[in-house]
């Protein structure tokens, strides 16, 4: 064979491709000869952490992935669940952390583009986007421009394609100073009997390329996404891709139009590692070979080599296998949408990937052996021990409880993120029933009276202190947020963001978080249907807090039966569901008021979580609840303040008699709790009692102040000013990407 002879394969070249000596030995075995540079590049991306999950695979297998309503779990482009009436929800979350740190606008924008493609690849129309963002300390000089660029980028892409961005999360912590997290999630809607998969079949069938042309974008992005940063990363600034949301919008419409016809056998987006991983995945899943003529690939630049074409990460491209004879009909659709369309190859029975260019063979590799021999590591782990539980009495009371409340609601993590979501079109498609700001967003299933609830959650403080508890808590909180709006939680996607897995303590965090997620998923019947792993979020040996972001989806059968955060009318009763112990370890109170972050995170009692949630959901469905909010960061008083701020209606509450110090009652972060407003709170407490659910009558809403007996009062207006004020003031006159 005649391969480009240009680049000799030296040990340095092998190393620059991120392959260890041992991995390279395996390459030689599989090839039976020295690979050429194109082949080496292909091995390198296919065996990168990003594509092969070599460090995480062993642990991911632990995740529960089945339930009667799961149509397709992990392993495809996105997870698929049955939501009744012949419909399916398709969703996944994915990270774009490293690219967003290097170029926040384009990094975040292309992250959204990528996850959208994962969802519409499966035949679903995207109906909502969400995000999960983590930035460095607010006083770190890079934080402000990163927030600005990332938010503008997520909005810039989602707004243009016309998919509402309806929910998300955003926290700050110094551990993200050098490694921000930008996780994006898309939820789509499809007919349950019209899901498209990546499995290629039919020897001789045409392989078709559609979308944008291929340029030299992001070559080696997939390996970059798996490499730890060092201090020179900023200087290197490699390979950032630019997104084109306009083309993505056309691609969505064209693909969905073609999908309505009976023409596609298999389809796969070209994400990280572009044409390489998409063609490998399609052929590998179908057990067939593939032959591609690289001269047929639409290119943007002249003189592109096979290496560049195969490894390019140009955005807005898809690969399909069509039924024979359907090429012309398909071409007409893509030309109508002014997109490139090219038959670039065909399926073969050789089990090999053969690439040709200029009449010569540019690469020839076996498909299965390459995938099967992909390295899997069982890396050593070391668990983070459970810290000692802080007794409430060991945490001093604040100078004033209402003053502490004002500080908390105006702190970076708990303040209103309106400044962010107002830059996202969260209403386009005219089905957003519950806009950003609630426990979960609700998007109506178009043309029906049913809705999907969705949220992203994770508390990295808890995960850092005790990964297993933190992992379980993230899932439980996601489940609780869906429950709080009246939805039946159905399934999750997870985005595992961690440091360097070669360090046992990091691998231990990973393994323990997975274990916690597993326990919670099992206890709550809340399986994992898709996910993504981002490792090496580490700069100069300092890792991020372990951050397993959880994205959850739930179903509301009747949109008239749901709940929301704001109080609805003065005079209604306020009831607390769940057990309060006053747990202050790892709490927002401890961090914001005392500058401490010690202690164990609050324990997660999954049985209580489930029982309390099931009770609350039933009460909402029965129309007995006028407002509902789960208790999370900041504790009960923050939850009450949020209900008051959202409505402009105050409240007057009294702590039940007992040994818990008032500040621990106010700010403890005990899990499994909800605040409900009801016209008849006493009756609600009684029903809870009969059902064996802990419930206490707290007081009534009304007036313009929030009052806690023994702690005084604060005006709702003042709370609001603090709550709404922090982020806009922090961002100041920042001009973001607007001038660009």
């Amino acid at each position, binding site marked *: 064979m005649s391969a480009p002879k240009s680049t000799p394969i030296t040990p340095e070249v092998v190393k620059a491709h991120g392959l260890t000596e041992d991995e390279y030995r395996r390459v030689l075995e599989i090839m039976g000869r020295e690979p050429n540079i194109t082949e080496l590049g292909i091995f390198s991306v296919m065996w990168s952490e990003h594509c092969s999950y070599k460090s995480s695979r062993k642990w991911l297998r632990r995740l529960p992935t089945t339930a009667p309503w799961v149509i397709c779990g992990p392993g495809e482009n996105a997870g698929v669940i049955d939501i009744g009436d012949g419909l399916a929800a398709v969703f996944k979350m994915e990270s774009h952390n490293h690219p967003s740190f*290097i*170029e926040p*606008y*384009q990094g975040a924008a292309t992250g959204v583009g990528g996850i959208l493609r994962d969802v519409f690849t499966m035949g679903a129309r995207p109906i909502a986007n969400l995000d999960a963002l983590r930035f460095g300390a607010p006083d770190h000089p890079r934080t402000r421009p990163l927030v600005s660029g990332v938010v503008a980028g997520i909005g810039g892409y989602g707004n243009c394609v016309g998919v509402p961005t309806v929910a998300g999360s955003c926290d700050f912590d110094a551990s993200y100073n050098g490694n921000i997290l930008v996780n994006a999630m898309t939820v789509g809607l499809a007919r349950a009997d019209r899901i498209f998969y990546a499995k290629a079949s039919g020897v001789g069938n045409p392989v078709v390329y559609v979308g*944008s042309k291929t*340029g*030299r*974008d992001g070559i080696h992005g997939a390996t970059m996404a798996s490499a730890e940063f060092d201090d020179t990363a900023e200087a290197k*600034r490699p390979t*950032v*891709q*630019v*997104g*084109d949301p*306009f*083309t993505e919008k056309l691609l969505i419409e064209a693909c969905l139009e073609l999908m309505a016809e009976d023409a596609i056998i298999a389809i796969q987006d070209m994400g990280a590692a572009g044409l390489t991983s998409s063609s490998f995945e399609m052929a590998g899943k179908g057990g067939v070979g593939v032959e591609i003529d690289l001269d047929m690939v639409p290119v*943007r*630049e002249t003189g592109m080599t096979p290496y560049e074409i195969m490894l390019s990460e*140009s*955005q807005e491209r898809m690969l399909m296998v069509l039924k024979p004879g359907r090429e012309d009909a398909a071409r007409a659709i893509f030309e109508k949408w*002014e997109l490139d369309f090219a038959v670039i190859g065909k399926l073969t029975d050789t089990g090999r990937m053969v690439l040709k260019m200029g009449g010569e063979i540019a690469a020839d590799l076996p498909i299965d052996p390459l995938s099967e021999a992909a390295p899997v590591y069982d890396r050593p782990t070391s668990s983070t021990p459970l810290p000692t539980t802080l007794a409430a009495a060991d945490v001093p009371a604040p100078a004033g409880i209402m003053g502490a409340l004002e500080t908390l609601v105006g702190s970076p993590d708990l303040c209103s993120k309106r400044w962010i979501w107002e830059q996202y079109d969260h209403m386009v498609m005219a089905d957003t029933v519950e806009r950003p700001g609630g426990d979960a967003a609700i998007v109506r299933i178009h043309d029906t009276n049913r809705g999907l609830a969705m949220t992203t959650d994770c508390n990295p403080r808890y995960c850092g202190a005790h990964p297993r508890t933190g992992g379980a808590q993230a899932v439980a909180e996601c489940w609780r947020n869906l429950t709080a709006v009246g939805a039946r939680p159905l399934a999750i996607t997870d985005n595992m963001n961690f440091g360097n897995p070669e360090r046992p303590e990091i691998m231990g965090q990973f393994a323990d978080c997975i274990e916690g997620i597993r326990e919670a998923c099992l206890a709550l019947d809340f399986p994992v249907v898709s996910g993504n792993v981002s490792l090496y979020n580490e700069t100069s040996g300092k890792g991020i807090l372990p951050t397993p972001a959880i994205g959850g989806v739930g179903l509301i059968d009747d949109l008239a039966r749901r709940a929301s955060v704001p109080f609805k009318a003065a005079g209604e009763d306020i009831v607390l569901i769940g057990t309060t112990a006053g747990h202050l370890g790892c709490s927002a109170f401890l961090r914001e008021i005392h500058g401490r972050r010690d202690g164990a995170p609050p324990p997660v009692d999954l049985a209580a979580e489930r029982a309390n949630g099931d009770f609350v959901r039933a009460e909402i469905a029965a129309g007995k609840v006028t407002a509902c909010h789960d208790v999370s960061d900041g504790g009960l008083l923050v939850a009450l303040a949020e209900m008051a701020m959202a409505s402009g209606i105050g409240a007057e509450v009294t702590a039940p008699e007992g040994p818990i110090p008032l500040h621990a009652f106010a700010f403890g972060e005990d899990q499994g709790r909800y605040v409900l407003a009801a016209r008849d709170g006493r009756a609600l407490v009684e029903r809870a009692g009969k059902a064996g659910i802990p419930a206490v009558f707290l007081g009534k809403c009304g007036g313009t102040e929030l009052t806690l007996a023994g702690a005084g009062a604060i005006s709702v207006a003042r709370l609001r000013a603090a709550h709404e004020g922090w982020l806009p003031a922090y961002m100041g006159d920042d001009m973001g990407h607007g001038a*660009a």
Partner: protein
Amino acid sequence: MRARVHVTLKQGVLDPQGKAIGNALKSLGFSGIGEVRQGKFIELEVAESDPARARQKLGEMCEKLLANTVIEDYRIDLDH
């Protein structure tokens, strides 16, 4: 001193705007249009009479704000 800064996408970086403009020109019936690239153009007044110092200051502005040097190049022109 009056300065003009041109900020353009680096060679090889996708320019969706330029591409769309090219297509639009074609569909308006203009023929023979090759590649189209769009950039930014910033005019500003700097209180600095020494060209070398002005140029240095403008370079800093470009690096810090006016250009995104990950994907963009810049060029500084001074009026005399």
